[in-house]
């Protein structure tokens, strides 16, 4: 997933080979991660796809089944991985993940501590952010879950950047080996206030902590604990609204059932013909509206910076 081997770098000449991890894209909301294996097949509602047909094709290719159905084969990215990974726990999604990476000021070379590992959705993005010289140490108290996460990181090829430990961070704190070493710490724990004192000891001066909690009571309590050793304590909620785009006839009050794709390609919009489009009553117009359903809450993100005392 990350470019540690230059020969694997995405390019016009980079073709799918045996052993590659590919994301099989059916629709924007139906995707699956598949390890390419010469003798294997993928079976879905479109029919049977032979992996051997995929080998030698560029990433981003459209491939067909025995029945003529098709899917696209994409190169994995942390964003796609978040959409296909197996949910062993509640996971973090792109809006929270992006904001966390930015707000924790994570750059290549950083040492980041995380607990719990959960399904490894955030971990994958953390690994991308610290690569190629940094490292993510992630801890989960659930032995089996930690093992599954380790397998996933092997599969996605980021295991050289991530170490998974089994440890109850709320109960024991982070290992003493990391005292004063961490650039940032991320907590996704039911009682984060128990881990905050330890997290504070791990951080370098001016280092940043983030705690993700679904409930405001958890935030309240975490903030009370944070006030003794941290400054710049800020709590956010971040959400995404997505939009549907359709082509409408402006003189018609009813939306065409075919949607945008069913229409013949409309004339390319030139910067100057915006007005003429409006003058013509029967012209087609592209319109957008928010999708009807959306995620209403994920969690609160609380950030705090270690007080600078020396």
């Amino acid at each position, binding site marked *: 997933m*990350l*470019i540690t081997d*230059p020969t694997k*770098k*995405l390019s*016009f*000449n*980079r073709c799918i080979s045996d052993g590659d991890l590919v994301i099989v*894209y059916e629709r924007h909301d139906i995707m699956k991660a598949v390890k390419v294996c010469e003798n294997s097949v993928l079976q879905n509602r479109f029919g049977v796809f032979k992996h051997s047909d995929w080998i030698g094709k*560029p*990433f*981003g290719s*459209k491939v067909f089944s025995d029945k003529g159905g098709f899917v*696209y*084969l994409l190169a994995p990215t*942390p*964003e796609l991985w978040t959409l296909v990974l197996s949910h062993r726990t509640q996971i973090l999604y*792109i*809006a929270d993940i*992006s*904001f966390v990476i*930015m*707000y924790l*000021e994570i*750059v*290549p*070379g950083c040492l980041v501590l995380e607990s719990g590992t959960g399904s490894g959705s955030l971990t994958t*993005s953390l690994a*991308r952010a610290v*690569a*190629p010289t940094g490292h993510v140490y992630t801890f989960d108290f659930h032995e089996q879950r930690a093992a599954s996460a380790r397998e996933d990181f092997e599969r996605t090829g980021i295991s050289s950047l991530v170490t998974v430990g089994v440890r109850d961070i709320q109960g024991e704190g982070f290992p003493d080996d990391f005292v004063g070493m961490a650039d940032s710490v991320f907590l996704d724990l039911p009682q984060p206030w128990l881990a905050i004192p330890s997290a504070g000891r791990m951080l370098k*001066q*001016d280092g940043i902590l983030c705690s993700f909690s679904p409930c405001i009571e958890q*935030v309240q309590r975490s903030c*009370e604990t944070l*006030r*003794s050793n941290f400054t710049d304590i800020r*709590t*956010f*909620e*971040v959400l995404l*609204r*997505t*939009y549907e*785009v359709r*082509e409408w006839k402006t003189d018609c009050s009813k939306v065409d059932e075919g949607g*945008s*794709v069913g*229409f013949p*390609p409309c004339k390319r*919009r*030139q*910067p100057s013909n915006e007005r003429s489009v409006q003058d013509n009553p029967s012209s087609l117009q592209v*319109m957008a509206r*928010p999708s009807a359903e959306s995620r209403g809450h994920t969690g*609160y993100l609380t950030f705090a910076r*270690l*007080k*600078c*005392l020396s």
Partner: protein
Amino acid sequence: MSQNKPQSDAIQNAKVTWEGCSVLLDINDGDRLVFSRLSAGSTLKIGNKNCSLQPLIGCPFGSLFQVENGKKGPYLSRIIPSTEDNNVQDKEDFQIKEESRDNRAIIDNNQAQNLTGEDIDEMRRQGATGNEIVEALIANSTTFEKKTQFSQEKYRRRKQKKYAPKVLLRRPFARSISEAYFKKYPVRIGFLRVDTLSLLLSMANIAPNSDVLVVDMIGGLLTGAVAERLGGTGFICNTYLGDTPYPMDIVRIFNFSNEICQRILRCSLNDLHSAQNGTCDQKQQLEGGCMLESQSNEQISLSATAEEVQLSSEDGLGLASDNDLSAVSKTCKAPKAGDKASKETIQLWKENGFSSLIIAAPEVDVWSFVKDLLPLLSYSAPFAIYHQYLQPLATCMHNLQVEKMAIGLQISEPWLREYQVLPSRTHPCMQMSATGGYILSGTRIYTG
């Protein structure tokens, strides 16, 4: 250059300031944000006083300073905060008691304060510290005791800001730079909010060792943010229409090492396309050369005139305007980013394709840009396009669907709300940004 700079590879993660380093000064908890370059001669204007920034050199990022009155005038003095364990405990004990006071006894007749302006000036002449003046104001307020504890805190904070201003030393990162610009000069960065920027970087899969094609018409914020993520690996190709590159002054605020700056290259869209035929236009090469030359001229003339690095002006905004920034670049000798891409590099990009595309071009028709840029992207490479308006992205998305150039197309609009979290007083902040712009994201597919 005998500056006491840390090793260049350590700059990216340095925890202590150095002479010539770019800093963000947060005055009074975010009331004012000033970017500055630390040098012996640089100053900061607070209220009507000019303070030297010299004491800030060599201090850890995160240090807090307070304005004190010295014999030679006001100066910045470092305060080491205590761990407030006891303090906090006291406060909490206090807060557990039900608040019984309210504002029924407060009459707004402007007679609550017994100290006059002359009294305060006199105190100052006698060398009273800012904190002492604040305490005196509280002691002489007839209404302070009647206020609720919350409004007492508010009163104290307000007076503190005026009489004992605090300066917090911050390291400029994409986060703080984008927040500061969004707060003070949103137009210059096309109203791109920090969460939107963070999403652009994720959606375009900005990762070390990637070759990123960037259209940055927001002053260099996008280029800087991408470069920060690449950390001196891969390449940024900052491309532009026509002959004049878009300005990217904001890049200089990031404390980028030479290694990182060398990874930021410029190449006109024409050159990117003409390189496809293997014939790089001679004329354009010349123009590129001229462009670089004129830049260095500008720098020389500035070093002759600008004596001190002072970004803040009377308006109290203090964010570097274009001129100020250039002035900064002279003392700082910040490594220069944005060299013209060599023929060989362009050829490599042409052969391999870019691994990501990010566009923030508020003033250009998005689709006309995208239809030219997308073919330069590797198959299966992601792209993310920012716009402050929805419609251009909707049109672009529709065209991409019709032309079957990309899949996974989605328009997203981020929403960000900050909370006040205090015991029994937790609620969303009263003011919030209503829009951070829109993003069109997707993945290029193989159409061959």
